[in-house]
């Protein structure tokens, strides 16, 4: 059985704002050492699917360094590959990807060249564990044309999902009897996970039929069209599904790693990442200083902790200086929290610096504060909850000592 996987990894998400200024969401750091795409990549590896095309277009540099030659997921060899498929300029026009379906359509030659028995199309920005072989077995058993992964519709934010009704009595799933793309409120029981398993001929026909139209999205255009004249099945996923589409969801999904019995267990899930990216592998063990206090937190090599860290996730190379306090926060690679600074409910992007005695956020219920990559919050500055600091700012961009909730510093 030749299965070709395609990962849609090119998108950025408006709600994540400064965190996706310079990177697609799929390479957003997650969980203390990973990138979000590590989860689908590891799922593929653990499912024995080792032929992968990754569709990217938004600022792909970090994605390219992260995927490298696929070696971190063992996807190198004579019959194994993980290749990035960027958009390219066509003979007739600039063929920038005009939607998820268009992205796949423009790479039909790549798919046909590999000539797979099945095409698995997944998103690069979800945190979950799935053995795709179960999905494949279900698909083959049902003789389906298309099988779509679903999970029970969450109560909040239901309007963001494609929703379906799944018939039959098989607990694994059944025929999709109804499908609505992102309706205003929750109408149907099952939410699409944007996991599509296609019989290749069905995929080719659907994409070619869609090509002349104005809109090219799998959820909005392809699935409703297929429902009319194909065997479309829904496969029910019952495990953890981490949403990361808003800051709040992204924060919560990170916090799901904490505790003795976490909802996300990367060792149990056998997650791999690229340890060469940002030189994770060459960093020394973490130093926990004599005056440190660390509780209910994650940290990695290269960290140096002299202050207090509570309920937080620290990526490699984070420094928390003497007297500083970090609570309910996520600090990306090489962030520095200088002496006696205090941050609560904040997300600091790569190489951010929080100056001495600065105050960020307020308490455990206030909105999240975000500091963009390589920005330095000056000494003594106070950022109330919900402030957004754009990337690459230094002291000269901060014109006052205190910023109110919701202000954006750019």
């Amino acid at each position, binding site marked *: 059985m030749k299965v070709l996987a395609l990962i849609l990894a090119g998108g950025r998400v408006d709600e994540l704002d400064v965190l996706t200024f310079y990177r697609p969401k799929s390479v957003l750091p997650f*969980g203390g*050492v990973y990138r979000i795409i590590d989860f689908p990549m590891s799922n593929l590896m653990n499912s024995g699917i080792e032929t992968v095309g990754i569709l990217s277009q938004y600022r792909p540099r970090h994605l390219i360094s992260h995927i490298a030659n696929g070696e971190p997921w063992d996807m190198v060899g004579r019959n194994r590959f993980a290749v990035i498929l960027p958009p390219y300029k066509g003979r007739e026009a600039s063929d920038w990807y005009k939607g998820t379906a268009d992205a796949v359509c423009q790479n039909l030659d790549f798919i046909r060249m590999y000539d797979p028995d099945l095409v698995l199309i997944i998103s690069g920005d979800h945190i979950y564990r799935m053995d795709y072989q179960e999905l494949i077995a279900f698909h083959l058993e049902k003789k389906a044309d298309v099988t779509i992964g679903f999970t029970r519709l969450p109560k909040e934010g239901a309007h963001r999902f494609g929703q379906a009704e799944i018939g039959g009595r098989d607990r694994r799933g059944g025929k999709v009897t109804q499908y609505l793309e992102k309706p205003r409120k929750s109408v149907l029981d099952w939410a699409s996970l944007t996991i599509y398993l296609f019989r290749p001929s069905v995929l080719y026909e659907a994409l070619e039929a869609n090509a002349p139209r104005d809109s090219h999205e799998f959820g909005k255009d392809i699935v409703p069209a297929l429902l009319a004249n194909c065997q479309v099945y829904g496969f029910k996923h019952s495990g953890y599904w981490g949403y990361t589409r808003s800051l709040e969801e992204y924060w919560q999904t990170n916090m799901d790693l904490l505790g003795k019995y976490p909802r996300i267990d990367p*060792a149990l899930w056998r*997650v791999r990442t690229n340890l060469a990216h940002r030189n994770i*592998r060459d960093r020394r*063990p*973490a130093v926990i200083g004599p005056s440190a206090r*660390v509780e*209910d937190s994650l940290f*990695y090599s290269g960290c140096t902790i002299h202050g207090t860290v509570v309920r937080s996730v620290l990526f490699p190379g984070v420094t928390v200086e003497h007297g500083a306090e970090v609570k309910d926060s996520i600090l990306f690679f090489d962030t520095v929290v200088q002496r006696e600074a205090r941050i609560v409910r904040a997300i600091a992007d790569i190489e951010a610096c929080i100056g001495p005695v600065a105050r960020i956020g307020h308490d455990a219920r206030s909105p999240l504060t975000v500091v963009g990559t390589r920005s330095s919050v000056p000494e003594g500055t106070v950022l109330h909850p919900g402030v957004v600091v754009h990337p690459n700012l230094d002291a000269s961009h901060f014109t006052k000592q205190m910023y109110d909730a919701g202000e954006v510093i750019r």
Partner: protein
Amino acid sequence: MRRVAAILLAGGVGTRLNILVRHRAKPAVPFGGMYRIIDFTLSNIANCGLPRVAILTQYKPLSLMDHVADGSAWDLSGRTRAVKILPPKTGEKDWDWYRGTADAVRQNLDFVTNGDYSEVLIVSGDHVYCMDYGPLIQFHRENRAHVTICMLPVPWEETDQFGIGIVDEKSRIIAWEEKPKKARSNLASMGVYVFNRDYLLRTLHETKDEDFGHHIIPKALQEARVFAYAFHGYWRGVGTIQAYWDANMDLLDPASALMPCLPNVKTNLVTENLQYDRPPSKILARAHIVNSLVSPDCLIMGRVENSVLSPGVVVEKDAFVKDSIIMHDSIIRAGAQVECCIIDKEVSIGRKAVVGVGDASVVNSAYPTHVHSGLTLIGKRAKIPTKMHVGNNCIIFSEAQEKDFHGRVLPDGQTVEK
């Protein structure tokens, strides 16, 4: 630097490290949480741009070979870069075990003659230090030396452990004393030699001498230009249990010169045969950890003080670890107490066991020269039973199980063999 061939002597047995070297060569002994001792020398070689290194092994080389692999962890792989692991028995005779450091090099001279080299750097793989060999090579060339020996001032009371050089005002070595009872100088050899390639080839061809320190260097003093290059940075031989523990503990001392070295040291993380990458370390609520070095994938639920933890160490609730070195994937069960211990990989310390607590003045009776300074050693995959009390200066051999312990108390200085 491309004209310098590097030879790394990694054959040392390191007997005094006792159970730490029962299943591995000394250079492969884990160090500083994530490293092995050889990482320091290999990183030194890679960092100063030496493209090719031969590693001479002999004693239990398997974990060493796994660790070095193709050298890519140190960026020593590519079209012009290489690590060659040279086991013995490459000579013409049927049974050519190395008889000494010089003999080991003699049996692998092909490595030197097969390239266009002007000098040969010979280093030992069992010291902890960071050094740029570039200025050393330059010093050697400027002095038109045949041999340059790296020397380090050591405390006078330790001079009997080293090769000691007496130098003139131009740094030329005029006399040599191998491990003298009463030394005339405190300049000690670090086991780092630069040889003029042609001089080395001629000497090794002409003689059958077996050891650099005992034979080759004294002979060179008679007939050639031998210089001392002074090194002033951090350097530790980690040949004894106490020295090994001290060097690890230097990593917890902000004043020690070892910590600033670490960013330059690279290791190979991918040899553990794990199906996943080590996740971040996790500290639970109400756990307590201070002044420690913590590698990824540790889970801390109890108390840890002044300790060095390798990847995958678990310290359960109400367990207490102090002044100890704990290697990969060892688990300290709930309520256990561990003090002044060196715990090898995959050890289990049973619930409410007390290990390493007792009278430090009672030396180990089976190995009094190895374990006498108040440290307790626990071998790889040993299982310390629940509520067991293991005293000070004890040794538990690897793979020891519950049935190997007689009673609930192992007095100070006792050994559980396996």
